[in-house]
Structure formats: structure tokens, C-alpha cells
């Protein structure tokens, strides 16, 4: 924590860019998102269709299913994001090399957010194709804003709790338990906003914007607290 105080803002941002670029490069090489997470999310969407077995119901619940699938995929991606760091002790190395934790947080969060944006985009396309959700022009503005704000919130919480669970035994089982209750507001807010964007159940687009406020508050609160709290969580 004290090493952050010494380092100026530029080193934090520089570190963040370095870490984000590294994470994205790792993804580019390993293609875990492309070859594993995206297919997983799609198969979940298809399975929902099997389980609900009715076009009318599917259209009604499409926004919820999009974000539910996004949440499950987030869990996998957070695990992966920190597995990369802990596989060969790189996280310890980063801390012992005095790399500012705030930079680590922002960098990993940005990389995660970039991947989540790709994922959510694909899920929304899947909802339009598979569940016959309809999107108007005014709705798509709301939808893009919702998607960005919600993924920002998810990435912040995911990075924070992922860092908390990193290196612990049973990380894969602990992470969902910690993460899912916290992201409930994102699920509720993003689902309602997406309903408005799709016009599901006759909800108008204008009704979606208040939910965006909730998503924004969530994203800001957890981005800030994550940037502050990751240092103490990683230090020993």
C-alpha cells in the first residue's frame, strides 16, 4: 500500500496499460475466451431454450437469460484471469517487485471488461437470433450504454473478488459464492434496462434509463473500492 503512495499517477496508469495489454495478449495466444468461454455462453443460451421450451416465454425472459449467461461466464473469466497470474507465481513477483496494486487492479479490470464486452455483444446477438428479441434504434443506444456500464461493474467486482480468492485453495468453488450475491444489483439493473431496450412486455425505452443510474453507481463504487482494497488483499 505504501508503495502506491510513493508512485505517482503516471506509474499507476502505465502499469495498468502494461497489465491490460499483457492480459489481452495472453488471451490472444491461449484463446480461452474464444475457444472455451464464448462456446460455453452460447450453449447455455441454447440450453435455456430447451428448458423453457416456449417461444413466448423465451422472448419474455430473453434479457434475463442474456445477463445470467454473462454472469456465469464472468465467473469463468475471472478464474482464468487470476489463474494466469498464480500459475507460476507472477502475482507474487509483481507485488515483490513493487508494482503498484492500483495499477494491477485497473489493468486486469480493463482487460476483463474488454473481454466481457465481446461476450455480452455475442450474447445479445444470440438473444436476437435465438429468442426473437427485437431492437429499435433508440433501444440500441440504451443497450450499448447498459452493456458498457454493466460490464464495467462486473469487471470491477470480478477483479476485486478474484484477487481476494487468488492463490487460495478451492478458488473455483469459493469465487461463485462470494461473487454472485454481490453482482445481484447488476443482474437486476442490467436485465431491466435490457428489457426496456428490447421493448419486452411493452416496456418503453425511457423506463430503462433509471436502471442505468443503479448500474453506474455500482460500477463507480466497486471500481474505487477495488482500486483501494486490492493492495491490502494481495500484500502479506
Amino acid at each position: 500500500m505504501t508503495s502506491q503512495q510513493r508512485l505517482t499517477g503516471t506509474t499507476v496508469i502505465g502499469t495498468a496499460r502494461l497489465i491490460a495489454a499483457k492480459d489481452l495478449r495472453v488471451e490472444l495466444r491461449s484463446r480461452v475466451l474464444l475457444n472455451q468461454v464464448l462456446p460455453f455462453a452460447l450453449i447455455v443460451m441454447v440450453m435455456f431454450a430447451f428448458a423453457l421450451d416456449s417461444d413466448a416465454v423465451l422472448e419474455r425472459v430473453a434479457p434475463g437469460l442474456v445477463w445470467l449467461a454473462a454472469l456465469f461466464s464472468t465467473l469463468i473469466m475471472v478464474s482464468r484471469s487470476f489463474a494466469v497470474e498464480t500459475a507460476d507465481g507472477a502475482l507474487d513477483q509483481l507485488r515483490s517487485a513493487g508494482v503498484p496494486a492500483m495499477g494491477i487492479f485497473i489493468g486486469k479490470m480493463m482487460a476483463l471488461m474488454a473481454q466481457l464486452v465481446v461476450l455480452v455483444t455475442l450474447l445479445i446477438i444470440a438473444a436476437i437470433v435465438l429468442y426473437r428479441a427485437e431492437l429499435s434504434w433508440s433501444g440500441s443506444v440504451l443497450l450499448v450504454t447498459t452493456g458498457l456500464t454493466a460490464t464495467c461493474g462486473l469487471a470491477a467486482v470480478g477483479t476485486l473478488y478474484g484477487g481476494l480468492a487468488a492463490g487460495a485453495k478451492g478458488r473455483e468453488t469459493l469465487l461463485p459464492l462470494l461473487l454472485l450475491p454481490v453482482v445481484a444489483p447488476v443482474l437486476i439493473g442490467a436485465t431491466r434496462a435490457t428489457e426496456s431496450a428490447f421493448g419486452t412486455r411493452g416496456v418503453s425505452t425511457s423506463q430503462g434509463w433509471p436502471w442505468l443510474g443503479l448500474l453506474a453507481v455500482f460500477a463507480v463504487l466497486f471500481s474505487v473500492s477495488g482500486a483501494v482494497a486490492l493492495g491490502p488483499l494481495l500484500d502479506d
Partner: protein
Amino acid sequence: MSTVAHGHNPASIEPVVDLCDAVAVLGSFPALAGVTMTVQRGEIVLLSGPNGAGKTTLLRLCAGLVALERGQGRVLGVDLTSDRELVRHRVGMIGHSNGLYGDLTVTENVRFWGRTVGASESEIDLAVSRMGLDGRLAHLPVSRLSAGQRRRTALAGLVARRAELWLLDEPHAGLDAAGRDELDDVLKMAATAGATVIVASHELERAGKLATRQVEVIAGQVREIAGS
């Protein structure tokens, strides 16, 4: 208990590590119970001694990762009592793991660690070639390297991020005979190039040949082994 700095370095230069009666505590246990030790620039010091004697804690103290509870300590001119965090980015510590990203190539890994201190591209190339990793190896993903090559990549990372003091905890562990020879060559070269190396190792006959002197750690205290 005191150790005397060897004569081959001018005494006017401030030592890299200067500990005086240093005590470090793990929980409530005094892992280091009064260590007095001086290491000069360019030395390769071997720490020997049984498990749990405090070798790793001594390395971690020098890396600024453990608080100095009592006594005085300076590493690279930084006071460990008041600002041990400042020493972290100038020291490189490698323990059981190398801290590498398996999916990235050797150069990409070295570049990543170099960039944490803003190293230039030429510095990174130099670090890679100095560890004998240039050519074909440089563009292989680390996951496809041998254990010895990985360790050398980690050391190249230390070069790239301009670590002035290298703290190596059992660096020979898990390497085959060829890997060990390579490692020794690399460490000798690093020391000639100006790095200071402290190695904790069980393998006395191997590390003994490498080291300029040997310090034995027993029960949280050190003593010089003469004639090494």
C-alpha cells in the same frame, strides 16, 4: 557473529547489503535473531544451512518483503526500517516459481518485466541475449521451454527490470545437470556485469564453486565459513 567484508571491493563504496543485528519476526517467532552481514557489489554470496534456519526470511528481508523488527539494515542505500517498500523494485527475488506467463514468448515475458520499470527495447534485447536466450528460443512460448531455460528467462526478467541485487532461493532446484551448469554460467556473468547475487542453496559443492564466499545461517543467525 560479525562478518567481515572481503577485501576485493573498495571499502569506500557503500555495501549493497548492510545488516546490523537485524531481527525479523514471523508472527511471534523470531525467524532472524540478530543477523549482522555485509555484502559488497559484485559478490555472489552463498547462504547455506538447514531448513527453517531463516535463509528465506533473510532473503525476504533484503527484498523489503519482511519488516525489520529490530536492529539496523540498509539495502542499496535504502533504510529498511523506514522505507523498505522503496527497495522492492530495485531488488529481484526468485523463489520456487519463476513468475512467468506460460502463453507468452520469452521476449514477451522479459519485455513485460522490463516495462514495469520503463526499460527500453534495446535493454530488453540485451537482457535476452545475455541470458543466452536469443535466436530461436526468444520466440518460443515459455510453456514449451525446459526448466533451466525458464529459470534463465526469469533471470533475464531481473536484468530487464534492472534489479541490482538478485536474491535467489534454491535456484538449482528442479533443474537437470545441464540446466544447473547454464545457471551457474549466467550467474557468474551477471556478477561480472555488476549485479550482486545472494543464493540460498542446499547444494554446497555446486553453489560453493560459484560463490565468492559462503555464509551459514543457523537458528536465525549467520556466521562466515572460512576458506570457501
